């Protein structure tokens, strides 16, 4: 470590300025707005915790969104984790086809969420979509997919896994490459088989990667917006009405900025708490 206040601050201040102006300030404003209410005449006034208490006590739409968002998070994050970890384990060893499959699995990540949403809307079309053609070929009935309150959220989950699994696979690949080969050789000498090696060595040694992926992916998915906006508009019957979309409708459809900022602020607090808890639980050491 070197000691020089002046040099260190010279190097750190450009980035810090960008963070303070374009990240910290808007976060602060968002919290501030959640304590304000604008009347129809355009007069703004401080209302304290009223926005919050109204949401919590008198707003069933909000509670439905909370429920949907939690169910969505509890499903999409473990599934994404499982799929991306499996793909990384299959692609860790070098073969002539490794680079090709890595690129294929990563391809969806290069496509924006809005385009992915459009692709899924047509692939999962209830009448003529590709997915139903495959089902028909397999002798099964056509499914309504986004048209049904029971299936819609699952389709959004499928879409998110399809888009993100390849991205997190990269982090797992990086983690796997950091495990020294000698550990496995030693284990083989002791007669460990493949499953042993996976559960006793690989997975424990990947804890830090896993917690990083889990935390980042959870934070990201809490704010899922594009597929809901483009495909379902929260429906059918509120089954996909994620909180971020509810906040958006508050701000841009019914022009209730106080409610919108309150929902965003709650999301921010929940994300921070979740990230903190997950880091604690998985004992990830981010050293200072």
């Amino acid at each position, binding site marked *: 470590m070197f*000691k*020089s206040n002046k040099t*260190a*601050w010279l*190097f*750190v201040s*450009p*980035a*810090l300025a*960008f*963070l*303070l*102006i*374009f990240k910290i300030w*808007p*976060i602060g*404003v968002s919290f501030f*707005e959640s304590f304000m209410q604008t009347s129809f005449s355009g007069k703004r006034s401080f209302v304290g915790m009223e926005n919050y208490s109204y949401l919590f006590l008198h707003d069933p739409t909000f509670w439905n969104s909370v429920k949907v968002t939690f169910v969505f998070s509890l499903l999409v994050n473990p599934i994404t984790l499982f799929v991306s970890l499996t*793909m990384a384990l*299959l692609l860790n060893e070098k073969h002539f*086809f490794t680079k090709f*499959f890595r*690129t*294929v699995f990563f*391809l*969806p990540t*290069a*496509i*924006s*969420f*809005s*385009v992915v949403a459009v*692709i899924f809307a*047509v*692939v999962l079309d209830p*009448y*003529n979509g*590709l997915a139903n*053609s495959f089902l*028909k070929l397999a002798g099964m009935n056509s499914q309504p997919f986004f048209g049904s309150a029971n299936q819609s959220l699952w389709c959004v989950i499928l879409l998110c896994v*399809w888009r993100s699994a390849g991205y997190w696979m*990269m*982090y*797992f690949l*990086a*983690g796997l490459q*950091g495990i020294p080969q000698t550990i496995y050789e030693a284990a083989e000498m002791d007669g460990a088989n493949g499953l042993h090696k996976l559960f006793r060595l690989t997975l424990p040694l*990947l*804890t*830090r*990667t896993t917690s*990083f992926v889990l935390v980042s992916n959870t*934070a*990201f998915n809490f*704010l899922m917006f*594009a597929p809901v906006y483009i495909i379902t508009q929260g429906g059918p019957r509120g089954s996909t009405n994620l909180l971020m979309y509810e906040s958006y409708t508050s701000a841009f459809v019914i022009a209730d900025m106080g409610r919108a*900022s309150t929902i*965003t602020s709650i999301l*921010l607090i929940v*994300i921070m708490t979740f990230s903190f808890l997950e880091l604690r639980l998985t004992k990830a050491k981010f050293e200072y």
Partner: protein
Amino acid sequence: MKKSKGVKNGTLFVVLSAISAFFIIPLAWILSSSLRPAGSLYQYANPLTWRTFFPSAITLENYRKIFVDLLFGRALANSLIVSFATVILSVLVSSMAGFALAKFKFRGKNIVFAIVLITFMVPFESIVIPLYVLVRSMRLDNSFAALIVPGVGNGLAIFLFKQFFEEVPNELLEAARMDAASWLRIYAQILLPVCMPAIATVVVMTFMFQWNSLFWPLVATHSSAFEVVQVAIATNRVTEDTSWANLFSSAIAGSAPPVILFFFLQKYFIKGISGTGITG
């Protein structure tokens, strides 16, 4: 009993091919539809035949149309300008901050580090509305600057550089100090060249983020001179004559640059992540 290596690799190949079908099939359909004469979208989707994925008459008419009639080339150029400008600025300021956090003790360091951690946990979408109010009050709205500056400060990028620089031995820097090199020279000539993997990681991450953003450009710009790729694609979807052909060809053309970038930087990208200590 040990299976022979050939059988094992063969099984692996089959399993991987099955997984890639899940990723490839929707894309293959979109690609083949974009190469088909414009017509009914579902004409070949149901029932399923080989024609679903292999158009019988291939045409580039859809691509000609988006580039010539709908000025998709300009949107591509705008996105490239915005993405590369953000990438260059972000790599520069993030690596400088990462250097200071990794190699210096200074007053206020803990506060700076806390700010870095907070901002990398707060996703962009949640601050779009107050950000717009701010950018408008700075009279930056509807400009390239509006699209570029919010993406420059990036907590995750700073964190990655910090972790990477910590691996560089202090002796190397001390030796350079003895030779009376300034800190700026040490940063530019010693540290930056050894952290190519970290740079590649930040380049890919920042580029993808800017290339794929839709919500912010929609809010922050309104004249077509600053239309970026995602906005152009979204507009192709909502124009009056809803033409799937335009949408699909622009989706394919608009996804090409990040795929190409990733294909070339993939080796560094994985090395960069593993060099940062995030992964163990």
